[in-house]
């Protein structure tokens, strides 16, 4: 048990991810206001992206563009991969952010349309009106 806690504390990014993710879900479930639900949704999406970023973080590493002497002899096998960070997770992050922005745009448009239609953003009130 103790060793699990110690192992967990050595990866604070995981703990932060779990807190953010669950917090986001809690906001989505607990709040009746639609905009607050969206904030929760945004938090959930961001936490997953955060996990992806922290996985790929590497200390003392730089962008994967060959620099200095490496650039001249780029075909030689002497390139030290530890010097460069993996670009793929960053590309995935960018794509996920684009998806997130698109989702947020659609959802805000929906919220706006709901407000114009019903004059309220409270879920309980909306459900009562629909009945």
């Amino acid at each position, binding site marked *: 048990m103790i060793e699990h806690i110690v192992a967990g504390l050595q990866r604070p990014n995981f703990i932060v991810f779990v807190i953010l*993710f669950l917090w986001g*879900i809690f906001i*989505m479930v607990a709040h009746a206001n*639609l905009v607050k*639900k*969206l904030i929760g*949704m945004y938090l*959930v*999406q961001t936490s*997953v992206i955060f*996990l*992806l970023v922290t*996985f790929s973080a590497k200390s003392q590493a730089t962008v994967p563009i060959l620099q200095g002497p490496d650039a001249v002899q780029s075909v030689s096998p002497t390139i030290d991969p530890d010097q460069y960070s993996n670009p*793929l*997770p960053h590309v*995935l992050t960018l*794509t*996920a952010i684009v*998806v997130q922005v*698109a*989702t947020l745009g*659609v*959802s805000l448009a*929906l*919220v706006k*349309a*709901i407000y114009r*239609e019903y004059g309220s953003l409270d879920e309980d009130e*909306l*459900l009562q009106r*629909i009945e």
Partner: protein
Amino acid sequence: MNQLPVIIFLIPFLSAISAPLVGLKHPQWCRPMTMLSVFAMSVAAWVNLWLVLNHGETRYAFGGWPISTALPDPPLGIEWVNDALASVMLVVLSSLASVCLIFGGPVTPKSLGKRAVLYYTLILLLISGLTGIVFAGDIFNVFVFLEVASLSAYALVGMAGGRALVASFRYLILGTLGASFYLLGVVFFYAATGTLNMADLAQLMTDKPELATSKAVIGGSTFMFIGFAIKMALFPLHGWLPDAYTRAPDAISPLLAGLMTKVALYGWVRVMFWVLGARDTADGLAQVHLLTLLGALGSLAAVFGALLALGQQNLKRMFAYSGVSHVGLILIGVSQGNATGFSGGMFYLINDAVMQAAMFFIAGAAIYHHGARTVDEIAKLRQGSRWLTGGLVILALSMIGLPPTGGFFGKWHIILGAIEAGNYFAVAAVIVATLLTMVFFLRLFVRVFAEQPASSEAPRVETHLAFRASVGVTSAAILVLGLCSDPIIKVFRSIASSAGL
């Protein structure tokens, strides 16, 4: 002909991009253009199916980057897999989409006005997103296309305004949660293996059996399954579906009901058999009883979906719940771990796509001609033409599972597969779900056929040509699927053996 998969994707995608430009000056051209491009896409999909069945599968590497898993280097490129399963799904997808567009003519919301241009753009984007999911050979690619399709679906559900907006918002919140879970699964897989390519992942899993049972992969596949389960509306996570499908515009419900959940289910089947390599052996993932768990979830969904359908008064809502039940039936089939169950499940998936579309065609036509929204009002269908009642009878035969319809052969092979696996609980679930389906169709038939007509002098309403065509095509497809079930099942059996079942 190697470029065919990309061409099939580009037909709807390029039309989606050009539709707003064309619609700027000539909004009335958008509908013909959409129909033309989806028809062209289905022709290309049939050609593609013929090519794949005769000349074997092809793999498409974007930009010519290496995708082979045989090389010592990891595959760099994004891969599209054009195998038998994908091409069959694509034919179903594109053909159903064209029938849905034919049906959509008279019932397209009148309130759209100038926004009709955007409406057709969204339909085309939805179709291209689904095409992407079908072809994708890369788990992150699946995520992106899943979101393209889902975002279009949210907007299309909310298109009609009013109550649909709230249903659409709920769909969006839950769907995005599902997408986040799926992305979390992708992150776990990437952290554990360092690759996103499905074939490469599967290779790594077989090379290192300890990887397949590691916590990262089990956790990742769990999250991925939760994500897909929300998108396919598996029983406890189906909350968004009934409202969204009931309140969506009548022209959109068949498209979403027939395609959206089925393609999500297809995505999970891809991950389950082509990445995780789930099969009924003593090694690998069988240790965590993945298939047993899925079979149990499917049984629950099949029985409870049908039970919930039984309690509904609204026609579209009842049909939506029967779709929840059928997702469970398909999951029972594919989780038996043998070729019989798999081919039965996938065959039922095709049937279910056609049947769901047909159900919402009939519901939409009943609303358009007779204003019949509830089970009690369905009696008005008698005033209409025989096309709708005839379509309803054929549909009911297939939903209940009587020969010679496609539904019978699907259920038959699912049950045979379950018996082969010795899984009698699943057999019982299929039979109970069938009986419940029969009960709710009897409720409809009692009203349509048995009760005395309220006013026999009511004028007969001629069914709109578009409705006659779409109901006719789907009814014929249900019968043809039943009569030609043997060759189709054979194709699925060969697919199952390529997946190692």
